[in-house]
């Protein structure tokens, strides 16, 4: 059962080949057996899962099933789930039981009837690219347990890659869906900023954060994204615009599609073996009838410096809410209010979160605001303008997702800058707000390689169509790690 696509699972449930309860029990068993090796879940929720499965079975019996009814899903532990610990992988929220559901959770489990298996591990407050900053310990890559799965959605990808969940939600502020998807042979999509509600999604950098999904194919990703997307009056930056039908265009041929290759994404720093995989994919797209156009995103090399001003600035402001007073960790010993704040935050946040709060505080402080924050916002505009111009020349942009395959655990933890450079190809899409995805395109030394597709605003359907067409012609995405068969 755990190798079936979402469409096959929905068919199996509707034709009574198996019930949602049986399917859910099967996945819970797999989590129990395999997750101790991976640490991909912070909290497993078997009681909730089985209750939701029974409700789904009743809905299916009544002929009221949707495409996700009865299908198990893992939630990244950044989405608030009423009555269930929502930790954001931080000691700060270790005991936080969310008093409400995120809109994404309501849409998938309430309206959609999906079954929640549990809450996935992640980098603390989604700050990291290796899932090593989690208070609950690192997640291992199912393809090689000595390596990282990427981050920040490391638990989500490890769970799906190891077939412990059919799909998982994830979030992406600078690459946190796409980079881990690339390192674990998954298909992950970050939609246009404002497409998926941020209500109940714990904030990191509010002008960049966007929810999405990691799955084993573009088709599976399309099914879940369809259910997650839509206008939400509770999110002030949610877009009032109808959601496209992401499944309708999947089978459209891509004959005549113009694919732009930005020369900056194939420059120094890209491992030759990764480049070879992506170039091979380009050839396959040509065989499918696509036209290749060389394009340029001249300000792309400034994405990392821009991001490491904008994101920490917004984070330092967002994380000011954790004060040890209303919820979250509170220090045992404090004599004054100031000491209460300082000790609670010093104890509750890990080193990476503290670094980012300090950088953010610094770039926003008097005397540095213009040189750093204002300048970063101007360069952000230049990066956005680059994309606007390039989308006059091509329909989608293609490049590598990462410079290399998954790296070894503990190899970059003492060097924040080396860690930040993991997101060199993914950050620009967040700064501009455009949709982007990663999908498998080969292996190097037994480890997965991903390629990235970026589209114009609200062109998720086109990205999914292009990815699906590639996945009809190639089968990289069908491979799973042998140890978790």
């Amino acid at each position, binding site marked *: 059962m755990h190798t079936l696509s979402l469409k096959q699972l929905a068919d199996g449930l509707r034709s009574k080949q198996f019930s949602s309860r049986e399917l859910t029990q099967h996945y819970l068993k797999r989590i129990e057996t395999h997750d101790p090796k991976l640490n991909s879940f912070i909290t497993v929720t078997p009681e909730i899962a089985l209750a939701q499965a029974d409700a789904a079975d009743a809905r299916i019996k009544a002929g009221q099933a949707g495409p996700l009814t009865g299908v198990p899903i893992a939630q990244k532990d950044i989405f608030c789930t009423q009555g269930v610990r929502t930790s954001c992988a931080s000691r700060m929220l270790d005991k936080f039981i969310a008093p409400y559901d995120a809109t994404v959770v309501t849409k998938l489990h309430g309206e959609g009837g999906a079954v929640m298996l549990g809450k996935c591990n992640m980098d603390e407050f989604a700050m990291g690219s290796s899932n090593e900053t989690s208070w609950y310990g690192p997640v291992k890559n199912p393809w090689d347990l000595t390596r990282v799965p990427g981050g920040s959605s490391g638990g989500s990808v490890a769970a799906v890659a190891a077939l412990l969940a059919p799909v998982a939600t994830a979030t992406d502020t600078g690459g946190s869906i796409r980079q881990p998807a690339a390192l674990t042979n998954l298909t992950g999509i970050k939609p246009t900023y404002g497409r998926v509600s941020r209500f109940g999604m714990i904030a990191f950098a509010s002008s960049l954060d966007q929810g999405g999904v990691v799955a084993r194919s573009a088709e599976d990703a399309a099914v879940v994204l369809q259910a997650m997307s839509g206008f939400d009056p509770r999110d002030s930056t949610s877009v009032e615009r109808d959601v496209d039908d992401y499944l309708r265009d999947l089978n459209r041929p891509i004959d005549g599609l113009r694919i732009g290759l930005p020369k900056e994404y194939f420059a120094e720093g890209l491992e030759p073996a990764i480049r070879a995989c992506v170039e091979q994919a380009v050839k396959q797209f040509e065989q499918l009838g696509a036209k290749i156009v060389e394009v340029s995103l001249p300000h792309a090399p400034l994405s990392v410096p821009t991001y490491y001003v904008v994101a920490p600035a917004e984070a330092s402001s967002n994380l000011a809410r954790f004060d040890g*007073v209303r919820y979250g960790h509170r220090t045992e010993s404090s004599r004054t209010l100031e000491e209460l704040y300082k000790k609670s935050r010093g104890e509750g946040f890990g080193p990476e979160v503290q670094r980012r709060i300090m950088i953010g505080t610094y770039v926003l402080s008097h005397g540095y605001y213009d040189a750093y924050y204002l300048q970063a916002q101007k360069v952000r505009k230049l990066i956005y303008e680059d994309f606007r111009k390039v989308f006059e020349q091509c329909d989608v942009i293609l490049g590598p997702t990462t410079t290399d395959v998954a790296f070894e655990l503990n190899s970059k933890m003492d060097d924040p800058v080396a860690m930040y450079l993991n997101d060199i190809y993914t950050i620009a899409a967040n700064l501009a*707000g455009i949709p982007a995805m990663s999908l498998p395109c080969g292996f190097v030394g037994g480890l997965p390689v991903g390629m990235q597709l970026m589209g114009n605003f609200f062109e998720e359907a086109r990205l999914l169509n292009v990815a699906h067409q590639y996945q009809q012609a190639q089968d990289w995405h069908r491979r799973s790690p042998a140890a978790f068969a």
Partner: protein
Amino acid sequence: MSLSAEQVRQVAHLARLEIQPEQVEHYAGQLSRILDVVGQLAQANTEGVTPMAHPLAMVQRLRPDVVTEPDRRADYQAHAPSVQDGLFLVPKVIE
């Protein structure tokens, strides 16, 4: 761009973060290296460029001024570290 130990202590104070004295130098080194990368921004010619705060050119949406949420104070205070009579308790602020 390098941050001194004193600047790190000042920034940590502004952010209301207690950092251990033995961590200050370590943080100073790491934050300085991050700021070196950020320093590349100075190369960009941004004359006449309008700062971009947000990806969507949207006007803040307004809603009718009506009550939309029920009173859930008790739920929201249930996980507060210290409450009494519906109030959040903190150490004494006024002598």
